[in-house]
């Protein structure tokens, strides 16, 4: 009887020792997830989410304090990708996704004030003072930072126009599956 009690106690002590050492040895430091998420973010630091830049958002998402739907320029596509990355299921029904968008300057209203130019995080607006500005399509991320700055509401966001080169076959809908 005594042997059983002693051996069990000793076993407990040894295992406890092992666990204690293991917990120290394999302690995880840092958060590689945040870095991976940051790589997925648009990276334009447009600030529409209300946080200080994309890396701050990535950290918040990794910690779980921000939802995956936080990034407006990323839209539904980014939210889906983030949800897949984190292994969570997200109801994307509420995410308003008008597809990729770009800014457009209404030439007749633009007064050439240059405010939008200064706000653009990717230098996508070109122009000079008192000249009509223009948006470089390839550089615009559709973040909308410029829209708020325009004093004459000359800048609007519109969906990226579908061209022959951009058109994608729709996914077939099978009635029997519904």
């Amino acid at each position, binding site marked *: 009887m005594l042997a059983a009690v002693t051996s069990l106690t000793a076993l407990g002590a040894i295992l406890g020792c092992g666990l204690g050492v293991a917990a120290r040895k394999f302690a995880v430091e840092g958060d590689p997830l945040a870095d991976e998420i940051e790589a997925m973010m648009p990276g334009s630091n447009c600030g529409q989410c209300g946080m200080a830049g994309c890396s701050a958002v990535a950290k918040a998402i990794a910690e779980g304090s921000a939802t995956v739907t936080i990034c407006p320029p990323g839209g539904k596509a980014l939210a889906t990708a983030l949800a897949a990355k984190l292994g969570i299921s997200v109801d994307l029904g509420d995410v308003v996704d008008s597809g990729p968008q770009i800014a457009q300057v209404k030439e007749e209203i633009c007064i050439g004030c240059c405010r939008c130019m200064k706000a653009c995080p990717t230098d996508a607006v070109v122009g000079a003072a008192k000249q009509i500005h223009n948006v470089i399509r390839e550089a615009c991320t559709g973040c909308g930072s410029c829209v708020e700055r325009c004093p004459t509401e000359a800048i609007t966001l519109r969906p990226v126009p579908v061209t022959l080169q951009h058109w994608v*076959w729709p996914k077939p809908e099978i009635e029997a599956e519904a």
Partner: protein
Amino acid sequence: MIPVLPASAPATAPHTVTGSSVTRIMLILLATLVPATVYGFWLYGWPSIFLWIVTVLSALLGEAACLKMAGRRAMPSLLDGSALVTGWLLALSLPPWAPWWIGCIGGLFATILAKQVFGGLGYNLFNPAMVARVFLLISFPVQMTIWIAPMPITAPAALNFHDGLLVFIRGIPDLDAVTSASLLGFAKTELSRGIDLFHSLAASTAPVTTFSGNRTGSLGETAALLIAAGGLVLMAFRIISWHIPVAMLAGIAIPALIFNSIDPARYLDVSAHLLSGAAMLGAFYIATDYVTSPNTKYGQLVFGFGCGFLTYVIRTWGGYPEGVAFAVLLMNAVTPVIDRYLKPRILGRDWRGAPLDPAIEKAKS
């Protein structure tokens, strides 16, 4: 004249028709089952006809009920004929004089729990008819192992319509007078008593392997040759390929040949194995079920051989005299694995999927 068509979602290529459809496949399949079924009816008389009707109707009923519950239109799915095929194949694998509720439960189980629960046609992992048969066999071992000696419907001693109906509804009155054993069951029982095959098969009461199929078994067992003929017709119509049937029969025949030549007193010969039980029905109609078998030719060969080999193993060393249903279900379970690992080679890539070396291809001429 400038024809202008309404602008809607673009129709996709191809813009030409084959005439092939699920319904057509199922109808041809059923047509090839007719001779064997009618021959079985002739051998086992009215009770077997009633059983067939009840089984098929139950299968259809189960399918329709599930479709209705799922809120789908029942008709198009019912018309594809897959539930009919399931019910029919199940009926062919039952003891011909089994009571009505066996067919009823089996049919419902096959379409509801073995098929629709998984999501309906195309989604079931296991062959519905065989799932139902195994369920019946395990649940009602007594009823599922009572076999009747064949008695052609034209024979004077055969039951008339009314008596057949009574047997079907109330059960068989004088069990010992009509029961018999299937060859595999008989051989197994006798072996377990320590009587070797030479003695047991030579005994006068022993069932014999005849090519006419006039012997004890299910509808699909007695008419093994007609079933095989139907299967050949299916191959001619290219509804099934040769891979699974040939591999499955080989899977049974090769071990049978080996063990029979080692010890004929303990192991049945090849013809007994191939023509008994559900070997033919299994090889041509059960294992070839599209949904539950692999998609590629290599996979089908492995699958078929596995079915055959497991059948032989279960028949010879297992607890049950017949093992086709179990073998097919076991192989169904590994079908996704087979499909995962046995893929066709992609043109321009090696077996592992890496692109070929252009220099080697260039040197070819």
